[in-house]
């Protein structure tokens, strides 16, 4: 009984972790991409530089989601509260 309760709570916790971790970086990446498009439209010759910086900052933002994903994975596959 307790075990199934822990399992249910862990699954919900994992879903919440990934779901909420996705929100912030989503907004941030949208902002960054919009600004980058604006920059390219204003100054097309700087496209290569802007793209490189954009990809690098995307990876940093994605890392925030990934932290949530790591928490979710550890809840699902290496749960410290079971047994």
């Amino acid at each position, binding site marked *: 009984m307790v075990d199934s309760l822990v399992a249910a709570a862990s699954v919900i916790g994992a879903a919440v972790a990934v779901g909420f971790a996705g929100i912030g970086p989503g907004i941030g990446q949208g902002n960054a991409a919009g600004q980058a498009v604006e920059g390219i439209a204003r100054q097309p010759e700087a496209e290569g530089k802007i793209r490189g910086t954009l990809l690098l900052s995307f990876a940093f933002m994605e890392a925030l989601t*990934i932290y949530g994903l790591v928490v979710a994975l550890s809840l699902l596959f290496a749960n410290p509260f079971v047994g």
Partner: protein
Amino acid sequence: MYTFLLSKIEVGSHLYINFTETAHLHGETVGVSCLVVALITLFLFLGTRNLQRVPGTFQNVLEVVYDLIKGIAFTQLGPSYYSQFLPFVATIFLFVLGSNWAGALIPWKLIEIPEGELAAPTNDINTTGCLAIITSVTYFGAGFWFKGLGYFRRYVKPSVFLLPINIIEDFSKPLSLNFRLFGNIVADELTVSVLCSLVPILVPVPVMVLGLFASSIQALIFSTLAAAYLAEAIE
């Protein structure tokens, strides 16, 4: 360890090689990373064996790689320090890139092993943790080497109130390096496995290509951050 199977996706099961009761190795991680190191060494050795003024294809590829890594080190560390830390940054970059691509490009699932499955070495949190700890030991050592005891002045730099935050930062840097790389690679492999279990043909291929791209970006990020932390410590 408690693991369970969700549509044949295994996370956290390893091929254990036991030495004593408490000491053991993750066999598949050690094996694949040895293979990656051997392949990179072979590649570099063959490419630089007889250097020519007008490079052939192999040497051309290596010169592009060298320019890329030198660019990373140069932009972060500046002209006076970059050459001393170029080998470190290059080692990190090549190992991470090689491990990520080894997991994605070599069809490991064809080879059955008794427990766990062969995959990228960076799929195991111990590999990425080790890389992160090496990075933080290196920047600590480099700061100490270049500035002596004056290195510790950096902990009270803007003001004394920030001392706890500066100390926490020393622990959170390797932790975030570790989780960033590990999480990205595991997320890649999980996405591909889930898609493969849903639609095994043709659909996972774009995601695999995206994963290949993302894992090369991760190698770039890891080495850039390592160089940035070094620069912060010795500046």
